[in-house]
């Protein structure tokens, strides 16, 4: 591979997904300028906050070489917990703390199954997905409307404006990604996660406490799903046991679009964020254009395949290089 090509791929790894997003934006902008109006872009960011925050957690799991398919169920569970606690008259803070605790506990369960019972992450979290969904229904079997009386404080997370201008979901999204970026790049935890994803047995040999780190990874995923749950609940003002169905695939799609390798070891924080926005944006644009659900699905599939095909071309070129 020539130096130029190498440079191209290096740049592509960093901002390729951003290019795709910009292209999509331009195309939509030509079709209907409303879609790229500032307010609508803000709406897109607002909306991307939910899947984006969960994707940030998911990125750690994928970077460590695993998956977490149970985030959807965790999101439902936290949504129900918040609704039940709030309608019981508990304070918003208490409800949110409970939700985070639940997310953390679910993460610990996942982590223990994976490290102690050595179940592969895919099937372990597939089973817990079922189990957590069941637990949610046992705990709370119907949607609970959060009336404005109990919801004022919670609503702050979805409509509140920090310092009067910054919409909260976007603030949360940015904070989440700044933290993720710092944790991923500048803490021993982030380094260890990359090390485990890169070569697990070597990580063990080096003396990293792999099990502890992995459990932590799933706690991070669980808690980030819980944050997403709080935000989503605030947005729709409803505690619903089926709120998170299919949510895990959204999060994974965002991470993969962002350029994080499924084989582990290599994450892309910025890309994940852009990936989450891209998925939301494509769906939103088509919604505004009035294209049906089928076309939205097709569009997301095509974007996904396109991004990964380019990645595939890179792999093929690199292989030819060897």
């Amino acid at each position, binding site marked *: 591979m020539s130096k130029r090509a190498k440079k191209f791929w290096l740049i592509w790894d960093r901002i390729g997904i951003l290019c795709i997003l910009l292209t999509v934006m331009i195309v939509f902008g030509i079709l*209907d300028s409303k879609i790229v109006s500032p307010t609508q872009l803000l709406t897109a960011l607002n909306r991307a906050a939910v899947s984006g925050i969960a994707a940030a957690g998911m990125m750690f799991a994928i970077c460590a070489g*695993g998956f977490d398919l149970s985030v959807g169920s965790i999101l439902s569970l936290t949504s129900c917990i918040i609704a039940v606690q709030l309608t019981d008259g508990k304070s918003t803070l208490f409800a949110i703390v409970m939700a985070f605790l639940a997310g953390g506990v679910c993460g610990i369960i996942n982590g223990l199954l994976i490290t102690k019972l050595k179940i592969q992450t*895919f099937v372990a979290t597939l089973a817990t997905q079922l189990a957590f969904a069941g637990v949610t229904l046992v705990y709370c079997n119907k949607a609970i409307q959060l009336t404005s009386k109990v919801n004022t404080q919670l609503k702050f997370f979805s409509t509140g404006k920090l310092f009067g201008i910054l919409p909260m979901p976007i603030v949360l999204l940015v904070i989440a990604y700044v933290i993720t970026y710092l944790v991923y790049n500048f803490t021993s935890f982030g380094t260890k996660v990359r090390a485990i994803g890169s070569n*697990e047995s070597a990580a063990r040999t080096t003396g990293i406490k792999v099990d502890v780190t992995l459990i932590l990874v799933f706690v991070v995923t669980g808690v980030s799903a819980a944050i997403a749950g709080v935000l989503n609940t605030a947005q729709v003002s409803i505690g619903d046991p089926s709120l998170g169905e299919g949510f895990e695939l959204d999060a994974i799609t965002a991470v993969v679009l962002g350029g994080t390798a499924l084989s582990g070891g290599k994450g892309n924080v910025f890309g994940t964020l852009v990936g989450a926005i891209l998925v939301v944006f494509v769906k*939103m644009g088509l919604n505004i254009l009035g294209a049906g*659900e089928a076309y939205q699905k097709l569009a997301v599939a095509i974007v996904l395949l396109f991004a990964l095909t380019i990645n595939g071309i890179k792999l093929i070129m690199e292989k030819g290089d060897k």
Partner: protein
Amino acid sequence: MKLRFLFPVKQVRIDQIKKRRVNMKKVTSILLAMMLMLTLVSCGNSSGETTSNTTSDTTNDTKSTGDEGGSANTGNYTIGFSVYDLSNEYFQSMMEGVEAAAEENGVTLITHDQKSSESELVTGATNLINQGVDALIVSPCKPEVMSTIVDLAKESNIPVIILDIGDGGSDKDAIVVSDMYGGGQIAGKYALSLLEADSVTEGEFAIIKCEESAVYAIQRGEGFKSIMEEAGFTLATELVANSDTTEAYNAMQDILTSYPDVKVIFAENDNMALGAASAIDEAGKTGEILVFGFDGNESAVEAILDGTMSGTIAQQPVEIGRLGIELAIQRINGEELEFDNPDTKEIYADVYLIDSTGEANHEFTVE
């Protein structure tokens, strides 16, 4: 993809251990089965009890009611009920109605939850038929599957009563339906009356739809549309939100962008209406845009009281459930049923409006 998952299974084994392993395997499989049984039995007790109690209690009751008409020998009847999805509030209410009626009539009830899966529906219904139920009540998650089930039931001469959703063109004994189209019309009329109070006579409205495959739900939207268009309002857009709250929330935001002048939103079920209402609330347009739902769930009524929704069309799942049991008993006894529409064997369950006060309002009716 090379799925080198986190922990590859240990690979090296030696023959000596293998012999022990084989035994271990047997032991563990036995353990697994035992554990399974324990969980089943322990979980089963809680809900199993109610059924057995009702049987023994009610045999006496029914004897005392004696020969008065249909419910003569109901004590020996077993009725199977397969329900759409118990994680849905609406069907929980329907289940309540079925259970209550079964208890009153002294019928043994066997229930089954389809969990929104069509093959689960066929399997569950077949199992119910195999258990020798005297009648089968189904509220199908996918109505088109019903003809298969009705055929099966007919082979064993079991009457089939369908509750709500739709019959999928099957040769059922009866179907209890809410008038979906009419319900939509009621919502339309109420919307018009509210708009008139604000002296709005023209403008745009939008519909948020369930899955395209949900034929019954589409009727609701069609009914609403017919009234609104008649009154001179224009349909801005119809978006599919797959009965999902979050998707409806997103769709509503998009509607607000592309059609800022929209006056009325009709969501084909309450969950979606709640999502839409929340989006409108966040946009600060509560009151400016009217939101109507369908189903009459508790959560929707609360939202109406809260002011974010303007009304919903209530179905009567409990009543539908009750009616289901009663019709089933009549069919077992060989009685002819009275249909509201004999051609399609339909029996209508009333739908009514819950207006902006959160109370039932019977002023508006289907013509």
